[in-house]
């Protein structure tokens, strides 16, 4: 996963957290993580302190960084900057071939060209403190 540096990040940032921070820090290094249960094989995202299926301790696994649009919207009204200044933009649920879904945003495209089922590829924006925030582009 490409990591784009030098962006002045003004959007919300995750609070440091023993569980969630692993995901954000890995994204800062170009790795997109999800959780895989060594006991039952269940895959899940966002990260949890236990396997949602069997209750065992999940482990981290690295996703391929591709996916497809499960559903999306084009946000055309939003009250707060910096989002207000970027309207219209795409918010989408991305289905990963690994079997998990992630909420994200598809950038660098004509917002009216986005459709359910289109293939997308992840990249990350370095947001400071070694953290990366995953985004998606049409493939």
């Amino acid at each position, binding site marked *: 996963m490409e990591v784009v540096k030098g962006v002045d990040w*003004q959007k919300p940032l995750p609070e440091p957290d023993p569980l969630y921070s692993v995901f954000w820090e890995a994204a800062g290094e170009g790795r997109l993580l999800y959780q895989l249960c060594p006991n039952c094989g269940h895959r899940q995202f966002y990260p949890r302190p236990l396997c949602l299926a069997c209750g065992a301790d999940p482990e981290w696994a690295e996703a391929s960084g591709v996916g497809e649009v499960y559903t999306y919207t084009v946000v055309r009204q939003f009250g*707060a900057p910096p*989002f207000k200044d970027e309207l219209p933009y795409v*918010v989408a649920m991305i289905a990963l071939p690994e079997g998990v879904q992630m909420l994200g945003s598809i950038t660098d495209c004509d917002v009216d060209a986005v459709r359910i089922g289109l293939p997308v590829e992840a990249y990350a924006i370095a947001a400071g403190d070694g953290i990366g925030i995953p985004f998606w582009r049409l493939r």
Partner: protein
Amino acid sequence: MAARDPVIVGVGLSDYPKAPDLSAVGHHAQALQRALADCGLEKSAIDGFLSTGGMAPGDDPVTLAETLGIEHRFIDGTMVGGSSFEFHVQHAVAALRAGLCETAAITYGSDYLSRMGRALGTGGGRGGRRVGGPMQFDAPYGNSLVGAYAMVAQRHMYEFGTTSEQLAEIAVGVREYAGLNPNALYRDPIGVEDVLGSRMIADPLHKLDCCVVSDGGGALILTTEERARDLRQPAVSVLGAAGGMTHWNIHQMGDFTRSAAARCAPEAFDQAGLTPADVDVLQFYDSFTITVLMLLEDAGFCAKGEGGPYVAEGFLRRGGRHPLNTDGGGLSSCHPGMRGVFLLIESVRQLRGQAGEAQVPDCDVALAIGSGGWLSAIGAVLLGRGGNA
């Protein structure tokens, strides 16, 4: 009916849709006063109290109980968003049956329009801050409340061919009823073309696919059938009450075309020994037009995916098979942040035959379904003419 069967005996609405002289707590108090006057009970009779709280200073359940002077034996502060009040009915019913209290009050109050303005649902104050918990997997992307529902609508359209025209029918029908409610925020008739011509907020939801923002509050008083016999109003029976939750954050809604109503509505029908065909009026959470469509399908009024054509037949309109939101709903009348209490109050008015021009003829069974969060927590309550009616 058995002596301890729970019934609704009193309902009250506070001033709406705009009441700048009332705080959130003021709405709770006024609605409670009116509900007590409605049934003729003294406030001292209340020994069970249920409220959500947490949205404004002083409106948490324990502070409210103190402010309102309710010495409760039973208290419940369940907060699952706009459907909380349907869950409260479920809990009050269980408490009354078990003898944990004899008379329970459910109250709600909000001064959102007067204090917060009209931008709810399209964001505000989300830039540059740190976000904890699962919301951090949503917040960096500028998703809005409307956007979350829009993603549900988009998937429904993709899988089933649902159209914007069909969704608009829901807003048009509810507006027709709003025209009969002198307090409704918007009363002018609209057509499908007005909905489609209104500004796009988050594709595919237009401004008129979205609920209004208002002030308002409501209160319900429940007691046992035995105690209700000598009260002022005909009692309304709680025939069934069930709740369910599939997720909280929108990014955890595994299947964007199904809600927990698919589980809890059949449970409520089973408790009542009824089916959708027995229902005379629907009071469904209409935060957005897609919310109604999802609840309609999941509650079994039509097959999954057939909500669009069903709505286009006019079944939800005035004079239709299952008239919807006879007070003008959240889409046109009043939506102060959490609307579930109004669904119950309008159901009671219909079952008592007190709905005026909006009265549904021979109304014996009403179904209120609330939706909290992002189609996350669904509560279904079946009410019927009963008790001493």
